[in-house]
């Protein structure tokens, strides 16, 4: 792995202000809007990070009301994901499913969110019951909606009910108006819709950055994998851009409620709108961090140049990049889609933070793509990213190494409103099923789902958006596809289950965990399902080798999920924590925790809220919410050991080709790890040895992690643990747990 050098002369010259415009129909669309309900309210700014008000909207009854944010909510749940889970718990019953009217979508920015002086401080958290997992899903998303919601007066927005007509919820935080409008003729797909709505609700050009739109697209209506696009206005590009609340199908819930869009018009942002307790500390910490980015990022991750795509080649070099549905960890064509390509292809003269003050600026964008297929064929568009997950998921995992196709897949995922990670993993599964004869042309209705066939891949996505053909089946996600294929008798059940990369109903994100026990747990022992944001340990484990022992791995699976949960309570982005580190970080004790940055977070929280906390308090704050979420899962019928099971593909080699492609490594492990002799055994026998060893090791890890987390061996938080966290103050929580002890 060599350190890439940035060469500005190689950056493609593409006009980043040029793209197809969609404003022609604006007036007609506006005229068709009908006000269903309008109320006046008094906007307010936060005090020490909290507005202390929460907004409830029922899209069926059109009820709009304010709820107070109580001291208990702040003490136990902090904000963001915590507030989302709290509201959701109160809204649903154990029998509630994603498409019941009582299911909610909650958006909450968290107390620190909206700070402008530190990198990664504009996030909001979206929580709902997932159509894929039937348990709460939470998604940490950028864009301006969350901060502008708070600066308009609300720490959280709860959306409940199901409308009969397509509606838009408009909050005007400048004028103090909340309005529900019927939106009968609005366009469906995000890149068109959000551009029109941003211009429709902005009063003039200077007002454009004060508007943010939450929307999804056509595929969210016909699949279970819909996501939400949170917009922000890009002043350099002069266009509306998006960050995605991707995982778990919240976009599908959104459309099931017949919400077309949420639009906010916030006040003009200034640097002190959170009214923090100690602005001086925030200013100093922020400036220190910006300097660190300036000095270190060019020699470390080059996030400002490449965004998260900087790790494509690193993952490939360490055999950790998912290739062909997580069968292999590297591919000779990866150089076509690695960061040396993306830093030429992405526009480099822009300011790519998804909120003000993000000096890490990973939200890169590739401009000037002419779309080749589908309803926007011939349009000139800008595509966000691609991020690592998209390059790996839509790219290498499906064998697609043509960057233009990769961008087009990324573009359509975004505008159709589907999660790129989910789409990548489910398509990789479809392609492997095709390779192994579980699927064929007849079963896919003519789609030739061979590795790297981006044309048919795109056609499957267009079908998903139209709600037709095999695309509709694929849109159910891996779990339901597995059940369907098995029920149709299309293949061996064990093979289908082994290669279908999902846990709890959610598709794996894009890291090969086979050789990283820590990441196996980091995926399967999560609350919401296998998404790396809870425990991205693969880099620490496999690249930096910071978790050498079994105990280190188990401890990491205690600490990091809690540490990372905390970002989502407060409205922080995770990337600025360790995608750049102080120059002397490696000399610090517990370097893998990046201690100086942890201290920054402690300071930023204390300086915002005026509540002095320590590093240990930070973990305690998360532990409350994390364990609450675990109990919530149990309440909804998941969240036990059996639901933390991992598909074997994530633990070890399922097929002969997989084994034989890395035979030397696997044979060696039989000697060193199992103390056996591989000589004279067939590949099948050696695979069986591995299976026994790997599943046994994973089970041991579960025991160790559960114990460390204060859970029973069935994965249930003990009463003692609940007491320690103060969760025994909620009798309903105790009740759920008692049934499983």
């Amino acid at each position, binding site marked *: 792995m060599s350190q890439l050098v940035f060469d500005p002369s190689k950056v493609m010259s593409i006009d980043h202000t040029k793209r197809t415009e969609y404003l022609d129909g604006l007036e007609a669309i506006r005229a068709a809007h009908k006000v269903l309900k309008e109320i006046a309210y008094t906007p307010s700014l936060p005090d020490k990070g909290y507005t202390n008000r929460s907004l409830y909207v029922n899209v069926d009854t059109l009820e709009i009301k304010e709820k107070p944010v109580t001291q208990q909510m702040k003490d136990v749940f902090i904000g963001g994901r915590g507030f989302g889970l709290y509201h959701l718990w109160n809204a649903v019953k154990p029998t509630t499913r994603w498409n019941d009217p009582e299911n909610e979508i909650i958006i909450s920015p968290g107390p620190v969110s909206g700070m402008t002086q530190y990198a990664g401080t504009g996030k909001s958290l979206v929580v709902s019951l997932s159509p894929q997992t039937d348990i709460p899903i939470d998604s940490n998303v950028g864009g301006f909606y969350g901060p502008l919601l708070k600066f308009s007066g609300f720490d959280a927005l709860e959306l409940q009910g199901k409308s009969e007509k397509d509606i838009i919820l408009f909050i005007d935080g400048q004028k103090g108006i909340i309005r529900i409008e019927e939106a009968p003729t609005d366009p469906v797909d995000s890149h068109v819709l959000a551009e029109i709505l941003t211009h429709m609700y902005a009063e003039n050009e200077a007002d454009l950055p004060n508007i943010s739109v939450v929307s999804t697209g056509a595929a969210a209506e016909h699949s279970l994998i819909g996501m939400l696009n949170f917009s922000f206005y890009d002043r350099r590009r002069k266009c509306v851009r998006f960050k995605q609340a991707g995982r778990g199908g919240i976009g599908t819930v959104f459309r099931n409620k017949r919400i077309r869009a949420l639009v906010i018009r916030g006040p003009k942002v200034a640097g002190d709108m959170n009214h923090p307790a100690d*602005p001086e500390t925030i200013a100093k910490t922020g*400036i220190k961090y*910006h300097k660190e980015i300036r000095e270190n990022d060019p020699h470390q991750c080059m996030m400002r140049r490449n965004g998260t795509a900087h790790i494509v080649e690193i993952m490939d070099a360490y055999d950790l990049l998912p290739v062909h549905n997580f069968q292999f960890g590297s591919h000779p064509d990866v150089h076509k889609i690695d960061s040396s390509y993306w830093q030429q292809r992405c526009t480099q003269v822009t*300011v790519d933070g998804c909120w003000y003050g993000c000096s890490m600026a990973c939200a890169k964008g590739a401009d000037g793509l002419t779309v080749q297929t589908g309803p926007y064929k011939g349009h000139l568009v800008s595509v966000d990213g691609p991020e690592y997950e998209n390059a790996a998921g839509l790219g290498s995992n499906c064998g697609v190494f043509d960057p233009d196709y990769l961008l087009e897949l990324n573009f359509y995922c975004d505008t159709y409103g589907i999660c790129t990670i989910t789409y990548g993993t489910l398509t990789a599964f479809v392609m492997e099923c095709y390779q192994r004869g579980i699927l064929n042309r007849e079963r896919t209705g003519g789609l030739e789902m061979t590795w790297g066939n981006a044309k048919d891949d795109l056609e499957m996505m267009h079908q998903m958006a139209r709600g037709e053909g095999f695309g509709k089946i694929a849109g159910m996600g891996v779990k339901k596809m597995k059940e369907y294929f098995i029920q149709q008798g299309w293949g061996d059940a064990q093979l289908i289950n082994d290669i279908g990369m999902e846990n709890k109903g959610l598709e794996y994100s894009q890291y090969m965990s086979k050789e990283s026990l820590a990441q196996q747990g980091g995926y399967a022992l999560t609350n919401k399902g296998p998404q790396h944001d809870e425990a991205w340990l693969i880099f620490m484990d496999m690249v930096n080798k910071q978790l050498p022992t079994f105990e280190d791995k188990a401890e990491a699976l205690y600490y990091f999920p809690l540490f990372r949960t905390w970002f989502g309570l407060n409205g922080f982005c995770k990337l600025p924590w360790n995608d750049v580190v102080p120059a002397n970080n490696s000399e610090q004790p517990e370097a893998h925790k990046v201690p100086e940055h942890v201290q920054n977070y402690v300071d930023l929280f204390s300086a915002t809220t005026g509540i002095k906390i320590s590093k240990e308090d930070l973990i305690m704050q998360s532990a409350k919410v994390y364990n609450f979420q675990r109990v919530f899962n149990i309440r909804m019928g998941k969240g036990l050991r059996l639901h933390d099971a991992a598909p074997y593909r994530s633990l070890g080699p399922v097929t002969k080709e997989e084994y034989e492609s890395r035979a030397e490594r696997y044979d060696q492990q039989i000697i060193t790890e199992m103390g056996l002799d591989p000589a004279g055994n067939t590949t099948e026998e050696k695979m069986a040895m591995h299976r026994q060893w790997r599943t046994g090791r994973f089970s041991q890890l579960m025991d160790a992690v559960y114990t460390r987390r204060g859970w029973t061996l069935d994965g249930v938080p003990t009463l003692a643990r609940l007491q320690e966290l103060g969760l025994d103050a909620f009798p309903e929580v105790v009740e759920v747990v008692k049934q499983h002890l």
Partner: protein
Amino acid sequence: MRQLVIDFQKCDAGRNCDHECEMECAIKVFKVDDPAQAALQIKAYEEGGGHAILCDQCGDCVVVCPTEALKRNKLGVVMIDKKICVGCYMCIGFCEKEAFMRNSDWITPHKCTSCGICVKVCPHGALSMVEVPEPAPRIL
């Protein structure tokens, strides 16, 4: 573009002057009675000579400003529009010369406007305004 420069052959780094440049800048330009808030800072070295923190109007801060609050005016001088600024301080963090300033009492930062006031008050004639070509924006 108009650029403030210093000649350390002439500047005595405050040994035989009262930092008139800083004081005048603070009072006249930023309306504060505190030389630490001036857009230029002159530091003396113990061994003689000195070091100046001066904005050379390089434009790096313009490149990183997320709101386009920083723009060059007709003279090529980088000016801040406080109405647009969101106080993110990326300009401060990315200024290699450490010439973007912050006053704890203000939410928006401040910088040199190449106004020339300091030039006029320097008793040693060490400061001057020069006209230099505007550099191309850097990719940061």
